[in-house]
């Protein structure tokens, strides 16, 4: 097959792809769903689901549903062949690896930091060292001096 012929076929194919579909209905449906889910997000934030973490997870799940709607309809993944979706999902996968492995690390450090970590459950009761109110104290307005003093506990912010 000659290159020229392929080119012409490709153009015709392209023409078919771009001129057939009007997705306005889908887009309007998507934006309405996004508004409703935004309302759900705000309402869910006012409900106590038991713990801080549970509320955070619920908010993230709702956000992920919204993000999926944006990706599927606004970003056209629903109407595309798979390659771009695979690229997109692979990034989500690696973000997952990045976050989960790092959180494993962070959440098990307490066992080492806490005194007497031998018994199980020690990590759960571990309290992080208290943070200072300020990294450095707010500037004193009297006398016009700009001197600031770092708080003794300032070093705690490093981790």
């Amino acid at each position, binding site marked *: 097959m000659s290159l020229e012929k392929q080119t012409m076929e490709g153009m015709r194919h392209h023409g078919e792809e771009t001129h057939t579909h009007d997705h306005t209905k889908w887009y309007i449906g998507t934006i309405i769903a996004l508004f409703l889910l935004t309302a759900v997000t705000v309402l869910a934030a006012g409900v106590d689901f038991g713990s801080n973490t549970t509320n955070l997870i619920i908010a993230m799940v709702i956000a992920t549903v919204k993000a999926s709607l944006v990706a599927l309809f606004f*970003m056209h993944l629903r109407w595309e062949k798979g390659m771009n979706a695979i690229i997109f999902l692979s990034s989500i996968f690696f973000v997952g690896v990045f976050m989960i492995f790092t959180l494993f690390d962070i959440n098990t450090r307490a066992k080492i930091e806490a005194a007497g970590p031998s018994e199980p459950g020690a990590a759960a009761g571990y309290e992080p060292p208290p943070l200072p109110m300020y990294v450095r104290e707010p500037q004193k307005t009297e006398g016009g001096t700009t001197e600031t003093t770092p708080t003794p506990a300032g070093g705690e912010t490093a981790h």
Partner: protein
Amino acid sequence: MSDIAIPAGGHGHQDAHGHPKHLQHHFHSSAQQFEASKMGMWLFLVTEILLFSGLFLVYFILQAKHPQAFIEAHHHLDRNLGLLNTIVLLISSFTMVMAVQSAALNRVKATLGFLYTTFTLGGVFMVVKYFEYSHKIHDGLLLGNLFSYAGAKVPGEYLFFSMYFMMTGVHGIHILAGMGVIAYLIWRTHKGDYSGEYYTPIDLTGLYWHLVDLIWIYLFPLLYLVS
């Protein structure tokens, strides 16, 4: 030689078999060029997701370690302004996707209308952000060691504001960049450079704009709705 060999004078330079002006020589067809550009854009979006994921991870770690500081500090944010900006960005995503569709359907006037609307909504978002930022700067609710709010109640509130300014700041820079590109698209559309046959830049900018919207979908509950 294979049949790829191009005779002197090149294929497609005769009017009868001419390829469109936008089609570059190393692509077989407009469709192939469009798909390749699109895949390149998706790969770029992957790097954007990875960029933001670092910020999200730091947020999760700090929030888990200092929940009280985050709850107390987030009360300084105006939830209504956050909600307003969420709605503004969602609508702008809708107008952007309509601009892409109008371009694909060769409706130049509609394309311009939707691009102008998207640009304006991006501007509204940044104006709201400006008021939020100036309020916080005035109160000394700033990041890291710049935090000097006299009424701080819980130790470590500055951590929340570090995350607030880093996340919304990086996101805001993306909005500004997107607005710049949309302004460029408006100019090119006015020039008549895009048609139903070639509107790749509008399509790719749409993908970028939706990703920026998608990131805000996560930022809104994380920063404004801590509970």
